């Protein structure tokens, strides 16, 4: 029995901590992969310290966590004292139930309802930018409150109700009595409540996601937004640092508690344990604020050094531009690259609030719901079509842009914006097939290789309906935007045939599986293939002859933008050769900007995968918005495939 329980405990700890140790392990990886360890290195730690965007997000997170936990602790403790003194049992239990609602509620409900409230009040008071630090703070205090109350209330119940009377009896006014007698005896619970709020606030994503605006991005939001391009390894370094910090805090608290416990039975003074807790909490808060300050000072003002000329004036100095972009989709100064937003700020004096999203759909939700006024967004083709249809983006005059001429002709007059009235192309990507040359014989040239029996169990396919069906549709020679039921049924049959051969339907894991050689064939974007090939040189890539999917992400100006001229200045800046180059290098997708394509310094210049022959591009198909009926059909068929 004893060994069994020991094994059980060991397994329990293994499952609890294995993920963290893997994370720590790979934070010291010299390479980018999470599958292959390429040697020990501290480079991700160095990188994280230079990554101003992430440090800014960290600073925001810490400011939010500290302020919200302190406020929640003050209000919560006062509330607990009030509830404890309620005479009516019914009133007390009613109050407790109301208090507990934010805790019982699913986060997503709390998040959405708070967002609606904030937007509603914002509209009522005619505030343009409702969502931001203020709303985040209110939301965090709200969901932290019940935890503080639930910590403090039982402790209050435990303490002798005569304590406060005793203090008054000994000469204290009622207020003094509370601070000198009651508060010290409930202090451990108050501290626990505060630490709990701090950590809850630190890692909250869902509620923050709904109530934040363009000017305040927290760390969890930033990490989540990275899913388009896979999480950067410097996040492992950051997570490791946070884990170690919390571990140290916990150890300090435990030590002090065990000392306090010992003191109970010894002649040593009591207060020492409590002092250590106080000191360690104070130390953590001090470090948190220290980090905030250091990061705060990082953005020092100096004049711009990049070679641009023309339209940039300082006439909008002091105004704010809210930019909403994909995660990891703009050069931010890490690794000695160009910090695009900082340079723009230096040049024009306009303050750029930069926030990130993880999908077209979540960006759409933010624009649709209001409460935050964005000035620049960079959605994908089909989403732009939808935004135009719903009047969520405004017309812009591309001819007024001095750098619009850099846009390659083939990316003008695209289907979603045939007259170039709404969008300026930013980044282009194509799906192809990645394969491992050690596992696949010869040089395949067709999607049919994904139906080849000999690679059974080594084939990966997309884990989203549109892309997965696309693979079958190309092979069948269909239009990917068809609304013919028979076409979709045929594609489903094809995918059902393929299913026994499939190892898994995946998205981000494609990186790991292909880098580690755990799968032979997978469809993905050319730019991402280059990242994988760096780790695993055995990988190769081709564009299937039947055609493939192409996407274009373009810069648009939402209808909520009131300073179109400043927004246009920003778009012009993004088109600047030096800026566009920095972005193209970081994003690692193809650039529609001819100044980049022709630049001798461009490391990916003429790359055969990013910039294939025009024939392949012309043969590729865009995903367009499907009509609701077809969309439902697709969802049904996708479920059918997954369940078959």
């Amino acid at each position, binding site marked *: 029995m004893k060994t069994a329980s020991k094994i059980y405990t060991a397994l329990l700890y293994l499952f609890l901590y294995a993920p963290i140790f893997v994370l720590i392990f790979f934070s010291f990886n010299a390479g980018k992969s999470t599958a292959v360890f390429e040697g020990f290195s501290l480079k991700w730690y160095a990188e994280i310290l230079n990554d101003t965007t992430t440090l800014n997000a960290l600073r925001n997170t810490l400011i939010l966590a500290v302020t919200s936990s302190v406020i929640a602790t003050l209000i919560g403790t006062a509330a607990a004292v009030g509830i404890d003194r309620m005479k009516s049992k019914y009133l007390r239990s009613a109050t407790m139930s109301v208090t507990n609602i934010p805790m019982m509620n699913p986060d997503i409900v709390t998040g959405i309802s708070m967002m609606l409230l904030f937007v509603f009040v914002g509209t009522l008071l005619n505030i343009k930018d409702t969502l931001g630090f203020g709303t985040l703070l209110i939301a965090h205090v709200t969901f932290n409150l019940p935890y503080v109350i639930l910590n403090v209330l039982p402790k209050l119940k435990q*303490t*002798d109700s*005569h*304590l406060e*009377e*005793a*203090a*008054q*009896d*000994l*000469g*204290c*006014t*009622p207020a*003094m*009595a509370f601070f*000198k*007698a009651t508060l*010290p*005896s409930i*202090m451990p619970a108050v501290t626990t409540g505060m630490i709990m709020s701090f950590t809850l606030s630190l890692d909250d994503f869902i509620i923050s996601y709904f109530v934040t605006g363009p000017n305040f991005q927290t760390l969890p939001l930033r990490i989540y937004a990275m899913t388009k391009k896979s999480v950067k390894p410097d996040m492992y370094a950051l997570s490791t640092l946070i884990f170690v910090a919390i571990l140290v805090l916990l150890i300090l608290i435990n030590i002090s508690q065990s000392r306090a416990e010992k*003191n*109970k*039975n*010894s*002649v*040593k*003074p*009591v*207060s020492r344990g*409590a002092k250590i807790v106080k000191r360690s909490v104070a130390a953590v808060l001090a470090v948190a604020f220290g980090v905030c300050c250091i990061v705060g000072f990082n953005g020092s003002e100096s004049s711009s050094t990049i070679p641009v000329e023309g339209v940039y004036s300082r006439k909008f100095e002091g105004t704010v531009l809210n930019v909403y972009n994909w995660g990891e989709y703009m050069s931010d100064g890490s690794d000695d690259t160009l910090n695009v937003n900082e340079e723009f700020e230096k040049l024009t004096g306009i303050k750029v609030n930069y926030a990130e999203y993880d999908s077209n759909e979540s960006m759409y939700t933010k624009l649709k719901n209001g409460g935050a006024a964005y000035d620049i967004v960079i959605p994908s083709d089909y989403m732009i079509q939808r935004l135009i249809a719903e009047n969520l983006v405004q017309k812009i005059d591309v001819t007024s842009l001095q750098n619009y001429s850099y846009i390659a002709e083939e990316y003008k007059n695209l289907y979603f914006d045939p007259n170039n009235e709404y969008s300026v192309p930013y980044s282009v990507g194509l799906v192809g097939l990645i394969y491992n040359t050690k596992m696949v014989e010869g040089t395949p040239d067709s999607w049919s290789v994904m139906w080849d029996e000999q690679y059974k169990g080594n084939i990966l396919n997309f884990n989203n309906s549109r892309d997965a069906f696309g693979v079958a549709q190309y092979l069948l020679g269909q239009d990917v935007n068809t609304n013919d039921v028979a076409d979709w049924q045929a594609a489903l049959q094809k995918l059902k045939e393929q299913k026994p051969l499939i190892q898994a339907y995946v998205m981000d894991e494609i990186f790991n599986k292909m880098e580690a050689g755990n799968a032979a064939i997978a469809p993905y974007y050319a730019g991402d293939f280059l990242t994988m090939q760096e780790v695993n040189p055995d990988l190769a890539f081709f564009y299937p002859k039947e055609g493939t999917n192409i996407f274009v992400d373009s810069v648009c100006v939402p209808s909520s933008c009131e300073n179109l001229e400043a927004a246009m200045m920003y778009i012009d800046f993004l088109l600047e050769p030096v800026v566009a180059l920095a972005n193209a290098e970081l994003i690692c997708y193809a650039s529609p900007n001819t100044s980049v394509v022709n630049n001798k310094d461009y490391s990916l210049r003429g790359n055969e995968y990013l910039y294939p022959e025009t024939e392949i591009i012309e043969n590729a198909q865009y995903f367009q918005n499907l009509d609701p009926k077809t969309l439902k059909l697709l969802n049904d068929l996708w479920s059918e495939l997954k369940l078959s």
Partner: protein
Amino acid sequence: MENNIIIDLKNISVSYDGEPILKDLSLYIRDKEFITLLGPSGCGKTTTLRIIGGFTTPDSGDVIFENKKINGVPPHKRQVNTIFQRYALFPHLNVFENIAFGLRVKKESKEEIEKTVTDMLALVNLKGFEKRNIQSLSGGQQQRVAIARALANKPRVLLLDEPLGALDLKLRKDMQNELKNIQQKLGITFIYVTHDQEEALSMSDTVVVMNNGVIQQIGTPISIYNEPKNAFVADFIGESNIIDGVMKADFKVDFSGHRFDCLDKGFAPDENVDVVVRPEDVDVVDEEKGMLKGIVTSVTFKGVHFETIVDIGGFKWMIQSTDYHEVGKRIGLYIEPDAIHIMKKSEYSGLYGDYSSFSEEFDELSDASVDMSEEE
């Protein structure tokens, strides 16, 4: 005598949630007196103490402290200190700091605090305990710290709310003596609340017996015991056989079908009265020699004596004697005139003093339940 009065409660009434707790209570307390408020749980004794301490404001009536009305004066401005049930020591402070608490609030000098605390620790026999944590002390030691903490403020009046309730019997006896000694040494007024009649009798100068928010009797321990005013007091203080009687004339009383000589007078002829006979005052004699005759129904050994229940014409008497009489034996009882105490009929007549339903266990159970309701 009048100017000797330190606290005067005048016509105090208090009710709580519409439930009257104190009904028109008047009581004066002399300086340097050890006065005990005695009564069962819920009788209003703690409320009376809280009114003096300032924690409860009376609905009507006046609280006079040295000829000054102090009805609305908050606790921290009163020259009284309290020792609470379960002590209410500050768990986050050590022994020294607990005792120094009141002095620090008053911003006394460091030397003064040091000296007072040392004196107080000596007074309660806790020298060398300065740095000890409260939780590491025994109940008796905590009790001493609570006493020292209250006395460090040099109060004019010390209020003690069942201070010994949580201690075991032996320790309680020791502490009773110690408290009495401290009171005499310091010469301050003690107002002591307890439901333990023995504690009240052994420590107090004056005992105030309370029930249902009304004072039943005020007097010295001896007068309260020997001359209870009504059946409640007679029953609550010690054991009593309380029998219906008729006063035939001065010094003549009829009860249990026999005429007794007694020492009481001043009743109307043939007035119905309650007759009190303490169990230890009854002599057991042979059946034929007894004034009253009965049969033993139960015997309990109590150490010092046997507790014998005797059935006399359907009324169960309790008798305490050092002789053993087995169950079923017929015996006679002999009662001296000075063992008989006559009381006027009261609302409590007929409620107490019959041992026919006597069960100690039952008594304790009902006591415990009342105790708990008071704690809320």
